[in-house]
């Protein structure tokens, strides 16, 4: 007694770690007692899908097929998790039970509610990235439209299982081509510039840091505008480009920011500004390896990571910053496999220059003894200090200084700085042919930087004078290159490296 096994195939995708992976769902229905098996290294969230699919089918006007239902998800050797398999399984069952009249290739993903509604699932952007455009039918949840825009696919968004019937039975399938063209440039509300007026070194430092993706540290008394200065940073950087929008969006999704009411989660070309503070858990900052959840470092990719009160962090968190600051990736390992999240951000650290914080203040007296100050500053280890390209001192400014230092209006400065940063980015793009910056390129190559041997010898003199490491020497060249880029000069000159030197030197 053999009957022809009726196997229906539906395509979907899942995430293996952070790597998208196509999957094929095979559904077979054979006569017999009603059973429902899902096989293929699935976790309980997938196996529970039968509980959701049954009522949903009924609620949407379909019938729950009778008989042995076997759902096999291949590749079967990979562990899978997530509820995005609901929709493809349901569609597979409907086709297998001949409730839907199709025999061409179908891609679907999405979670189904008991009432038949279709919901988005986390990390949609990463999954959708992989879809080839030769499927006849592509269904995605309406919640994932933003993700679809990021990866620019052609798909049909649906919000309820009944829509499937309308589209396939009545032949109304008209996929939408998603793209980012419709995305309007977001208006970035940068804080009032007056809070950093007169802090010319800090402003210049921020400008250089934003132009070449250099790590910067702002030191000043409480309330002198360090945080504000950091926020200005993301405002003067050019908006995200197409692929970067997808990167940022997908990592934010993966980090679960979609469900966080505190977060302003939307698809936009705004550069991420991530604020971390000493009270944050290690997992939140660096990421959670057991869940492969990216942390703030990865979320800040293409943007700004602002570390407030840098001297107050626990040692293990600070030291863990070493590799991301140097290699611009966050590495995690889970189950014997390594994962790397890109983390190419401008690192802005802020802190007080001493325990009482008043060291740089005019008039007010710093009450720290040299030993107290030394102990305070020593909380930052040498390797971390070495990775900072620019140190800028800040202090509260008197009204007199404000008037003397700034004569043009804030918006002009803001706009000017934006233009300068953009110009510098364009130069760097043509130099590296990639989204690499002076601060993030692998080697500080004097030839590539167009630094003459004279310029290099000046940089060496500064490094020797200040006892810099080889990295410090490289940093001087890098920052010097950015200064030359800001000036629009092809060749670096002596003044560039000397200016770079002043940002790198510190009196502690």
């Amino acid at each position: 007694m053999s009957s022809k096994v009726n196997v229906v195939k539906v395509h979907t995708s899942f995430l293996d770690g952070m790597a998208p992976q196509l999957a094929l769902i095979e559904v077979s229905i054979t006569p017999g007692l009603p059973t429902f098996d899902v096989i293929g290294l699935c976790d309980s969230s997938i196996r529970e899908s039968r509980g959701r699919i049954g009522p949903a089918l009924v609620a949407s006007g379909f019938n729950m097929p009778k008989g042995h239902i076997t759902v096999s998800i291949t590749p079967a050797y990979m562990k899978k998790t997530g509820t995005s398999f609901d929709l493809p399984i349901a569609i597979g069952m409907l086709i297998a039970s001949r409730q839907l009249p199709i025999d061409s290739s179908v891609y679907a993903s999405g979670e189904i509610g008991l009432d038949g509604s279709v919901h988005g699932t986390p990390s949609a952007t990463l999954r959708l990235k992989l879809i080839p455009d030769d499927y006849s039918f592509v269904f995605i949840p309406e919640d994932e439209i933003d993700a679809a825009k990021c990866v620019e696919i052609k798909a049909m968004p649906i919000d309820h299982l009944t829509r499937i019937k309308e589209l396939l039975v009545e032949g109304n399938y008209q996929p939408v081509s998603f793209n980012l063209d419709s995305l309007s440039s977001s208006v970035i509300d940068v804080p009032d510039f007056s809070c950093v007026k007169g802090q010319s070194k800090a402003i210049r430092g921020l400008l250089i840091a934003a132009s070449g993706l250099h790590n910067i540290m702002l030191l000043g008394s409480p309330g002198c505008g360090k945080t504000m200065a950091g926020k200005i940073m993301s405002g003067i950087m050019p908006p995200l480009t197409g692929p970067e929008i997808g990167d940022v969006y997908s990592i934010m999704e993966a980090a679960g920011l979609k469900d966080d009411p505190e977060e302003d989660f939307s698809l936009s070309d705004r550069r991420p500004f991530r604020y971390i503070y000493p009270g944050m858990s290690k997992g939140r900052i660096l990421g959670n390896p057991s869940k492969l959840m990216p942390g703030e470092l990865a979320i800040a990719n293409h943007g700004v990571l602002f570390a407030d009160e840098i001297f107050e962090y626990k040692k293990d968190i600070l030291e863990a910053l070493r590799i991301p600051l140097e290699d611009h990736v966050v590495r995690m390992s889970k189950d014997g496999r390594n994962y790397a999240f890109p983390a190419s951000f401008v690192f802005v650290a802020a802190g007080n220059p001493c325990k009482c914080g008043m060291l740089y203040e005019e008039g007010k007296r710093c009450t720290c003894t040299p030993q107290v100050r030394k102990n305070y500053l020593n909380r930052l280890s040498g390797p971390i200090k070495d990775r900072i390209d620019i140190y800028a001192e800040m202090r509260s400014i008197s009204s007199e200084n404000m008037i003397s230092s700034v004569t043009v209006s804030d918006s002009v400065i803001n706009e000017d700085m934006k233009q300068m940063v953009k110009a510098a980015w364009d130069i760097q793009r043509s130099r590296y042919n990639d989204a690499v910056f002076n601060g993030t390129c692998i080697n500080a190559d004097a030839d590539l930087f167009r630094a003459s041997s004279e310029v290099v010898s000046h940089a060496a003199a500064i490094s020797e004078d200040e006892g810099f490491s080889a990295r410090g020497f490289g940093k001087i060249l890098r920052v010097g290159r950015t200064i030359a880029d800001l000036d629009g000069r092809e060749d670096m000159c002596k003044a560039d490296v000397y200016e770079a030197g002043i940002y790198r030197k510190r009196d502690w």
Partner: protein
Amino acid sequence: MDDKGISLLETVAIRNVGKLNYKAVQELKSTGTLDSSCHISLGYLKSVLKNCSLSDRTSVGVRECINNTYKINHAIEKYIGIIEKEKLWIIPSYDKDYPYEWKNLTGMPEIVFAKGNKNILSDITSSGAVSIVGSRKPGRYAEYATEEFSKNISLEGIAIVSGLALGIDASAHKACLKAEGKTVAIIPCGADGVYPYQNIDLYREISAKGVIISELPPGEPVIKQYFPARNRLISALSDSCLIMEAGMYSGTLHTASFAAAQGKDVFVLPNSIYSENSIGGLELLRDGAEVLIDSDTVIERVRGEVEKRRMLMGSSFPEKNKSGERTIEVLRTLAKKNKDLLSEKEWKRVVLDEISAKPINIDDLSSVLAIPISFLASLVSELETTNQIENRQGKYVLTIPRR
């Protein structure tokens, strides 16, 4: 040769050939008949003999001079010949080029002869000077130290004064010339003479790039007894005196005692107690001389002396140096009104000037000078790298007091 020059030479000839000594001159001065420039002419001597009552010894001396009129006139002619041939100049004590330090001490020559770069002598007032003296047969150690100190000190713009002798003196001059510094040789014979003759090349180089001074009239040969007297000029011209190596009975010790008596800082290079040639120096250390360890201490001390001098001299302190640089007052005005006219070097001076007033934050500096932070940062950084200023608690200060 103008009349003034000839009358100066006449004074010199009367003092040297006519053997009119210091005491006699002092007595003539006390009669109130000498004019402010202290020129002594034969005519004057005749009149003073007639009109004033002088002590026996002085009147004998004056008569002697008058009797030797022929010799004196002959000497003047000889002087003129040498001066014109060797291109010497005559500096009387009231001349603006006459070293300020000498003006304040007694027993300094009324007239000196010099050869070479006149500016160096007048610059000493504002740059300061260090004398480096020592044995004529130094050990390798002292010689090496001499070269090091001479180089480091002259790199700071401070003049190196010595006596053109063999050994330490020559090393000090050579190292200074090599570092393109300012060097002064005070020699124990006429400014046209070379002593010792082995140093002829050095003499020529100094007379081209540095300056050679002598209080002896031109053409005067070396007199051994004069050496200590010459040493008093070396120590008097400098702000600090470095004794690199001195044996038990070394002439260098004269220089040290002159320096001490003139109120100069005496530094002695420490050396082995088993080295015969350094016992004199070690004795000096026992007597309370300072130990010479690093050039920074010396430089700092000299700068302090210059600062003192600036206070004493007030407005007559030479702000503008002879190489035609703009004075800082001019630069200050230009920095406010006509920024484009200033060169990078001049901006550095303006920045230093601003920092010397009080420790200042770079942001404030930028708003005070009203120049872009990028330009200012590179200036400040360069000044910091060359150790002229340093960052102390977020504010820039001068590393060492400057002129």
